[in-house]
């Protein structure tokens, strides 16, 4: 009986402490809520609304009719038109579109001959996206009213498909750079989130703020070592990816560095901001975990960004992981240059500046 009573005492104490720790309590509610919404509502494994462009070399009504039929499948969203296939390819590399539908000059002859009417140029790095587009290859085409029913007898698939960057459709191609995003988010945010909290818990902060040190000096000084931590980690991840999983770097090394550094900076300053909010190391870890969960689910690591509903995309846009996901896949898999991906880089730099400013503002040199 006394054993039961002691268990009861511990349980009651634990409940009391749990109900007083608002952060933990919030997590208990928020994590299932978030997971359910993201998995149940935001995440659809049926990929829709893939942004594509059309390159119409024929300038014909048939091309417009076929384009319309492709559009109404809702698998793709036509976001632009390019004059040449080369321009479309550049847009794929830059990540503005995932695929381009190219109609040849001799479109009417091909229609008459029952040959494939056009070619899909597809960014194959994300296998979920490329699968959805590959499904379009054999879609039945109904050509316009002028052509009698059945006049177009396809003897071949409707389209030809050129899979860029990952012709064998290996999933590790997409996973390896994606994993670098997740691992960096996890470790860098966590390290810095506990950094200031630890100083506070040990009483070092009380002494530091009676010295002439400026909050910004303290913040930047604490961050610098972790830049190297981030670099070491990414070398390990991408190096193993290359050696073991045979996913080589397509882009230039300096472009890779140019996209990695802004992300490291953004993650570290985000961690620092959490550090000014969290009262204990435990809270800092919980906040990091929550952020990591969002990053895994919404950054495009597990599910294609394009397939997510608008609301989820807006949330994803706030996360540094989403931007870095585009950057690292762009440079690493498609050989994009930093200049082509400038908007995401600028976003990360802006994010860094904002986080550092807020963290510095929040960190008063007083104990009030």
């Amino acid at each position, binding site marked *: 009986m006394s054993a039961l009573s002691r268990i009861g005492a511990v349980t009651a104490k634990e409940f009391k402490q749990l109900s007083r720790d608002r952060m933990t309590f919030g997590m208990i509610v928020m994590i299932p809520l978030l997971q359910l919404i993201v998995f149940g509502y935001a995440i659809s494994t049926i990929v829709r609304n893939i942004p594509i462009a059309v390159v119409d070399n024929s300038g014909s009504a048939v091309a417009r009719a076929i384009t319309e039929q492709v559009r109404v499948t809702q698998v793709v969203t036509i976001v632009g038109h390019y004059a040449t296939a080369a321009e479309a390819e550049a847009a794929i590399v830059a990540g503005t579109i995932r695929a381009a539908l190219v109609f040849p000059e001799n479109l009417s002859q091909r229609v008459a001959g029952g040959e494939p009417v056009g070619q899909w140029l597809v960014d194959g790095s994300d296998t979920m996206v490329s699968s959805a587009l590959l499904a379009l290859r054999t879609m039945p085409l109904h050509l316009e009213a002028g052509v009698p029913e059945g006049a177009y007898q396809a003897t071949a698939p409707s389209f030809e498909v050129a899979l860029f960057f990952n012709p064998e459709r290996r999933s590790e191609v997409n996973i390896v750079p994606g994993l670098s995003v997740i691992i960096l988010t996890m470790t860098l945010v966590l390290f810095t989130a506990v950094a200031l909290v630890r100083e506070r818990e*040990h*009483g*070092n902060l*009380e*002494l*530091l*703020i*009676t*010295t*002439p*040190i400026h909050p910004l000096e303290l913040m930047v000084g604490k961050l610098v070592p972790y830049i190297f931590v981030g670099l070491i980690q990414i070398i390990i991840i991408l190096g193993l990816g290359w050696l073991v999983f045979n996913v080589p770097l397509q882009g230039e090394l300096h472009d890779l560095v140019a996209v990695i550094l802004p992300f490291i900076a953004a993650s570290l300053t985000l961690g620092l901001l959490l550090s000014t909010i969290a009262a204990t190391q435990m809270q800092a870890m919980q906040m990091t975990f929550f952020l990591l969960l969002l990053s895994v689910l919404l950054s495009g690591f597990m599910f294609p960004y394009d397939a997510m509903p608008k609301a989820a995309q807006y949330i994803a846009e706030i996360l540094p992981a989403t931007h870095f996901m585009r950057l690292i896949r762009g440079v690493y898999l498609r050989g994009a240059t930093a200049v082509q991906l400038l908007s995401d880089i600028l976003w990360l730099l802006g994010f860094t500046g904002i986080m550092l400013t807020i963290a510095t503002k929040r960190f008063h*040199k*007083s*104990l*009030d």
Partner: protein
Amino acid sequence: MTELAIRVRALSKRFGDVIAVDGIDLEIPAGQIYGFLGPNGSGKTTIIRMLCGLLTPSGGDVRVLDLQIPAQAETLRRKIGYMTQKFSLYDDLTVQENMQFMGRIHGLSRSVAAGRIEELLERYALSSMRHRFASAMSGGQRQRLALAVATLHSPTLLFLDEPTSAVDPENRRDFWEKLFDLSDAGTTILVSTHYMDEAERCHQLAILETGHLRNQGTPQALLAQLDNRVVEIAGDNLRQVKERALRLPGVQSAAQQGVRLRVLLQPDTPDPTHYLREQLADNHLILTHTRPSLEDVFVASTSGGDKS
């Protein structure tokens, strides 16, 4: 007239509904060791934190080293040293590394810092353990290191917040020797404590209770206030005697110390020994007039003196 290191007028601090410090006036002369004596929760730490600009006062006027605080706290930070209750050392840095770090934070040049560090390692008997981690040090050693770190940049004003709470009496005596050395060299030292023996060593004392300044002056002056007010009683059944004594109108407090009962009488009681002997009317008791102690001063000054 002596120069003032700290001048405080009507200082107060509220935390929500709690008034931690309530309208305190202080004048602390330069070059002295000034003590804050008070129990936990009396506002000692809060006052120290306000004086070095860590907390913003809710009201009042604070001038420290001729600087308006908190407005000029940044300038003040170059001139003060602060030793926190927790000592604020980095456990995973060695003695020397802790000192080097703080030296650079205070903006000392490498050569100046190196010289100061050697000097202080020597002075505080830390030379032999310069490569030891702070976590592996005893309470007394940590205390000396914390003092070395706090005085690294040769501050003119030193704040020590309960510096000896985790230290044995011998180390405490040693520590005070170091403080007198510093004071001798012109450093003003403000130290908070709840130990009477420690308070007795200060040049001047402020007795604090629940955020109020109850009494201040030199220990000698404070003790003189109680001349002729303390009577010691020896005998049997002291617990009962205490109960009886406390019921007497002229008695402010009574506390047993071993085989003796120490009775503090209200001011202006003529011949307290005679008064008590008459009132208690017990031939087995031996009553002697005795010299007041600082604890008596503390009890007389605070509400703890109201018949407890």
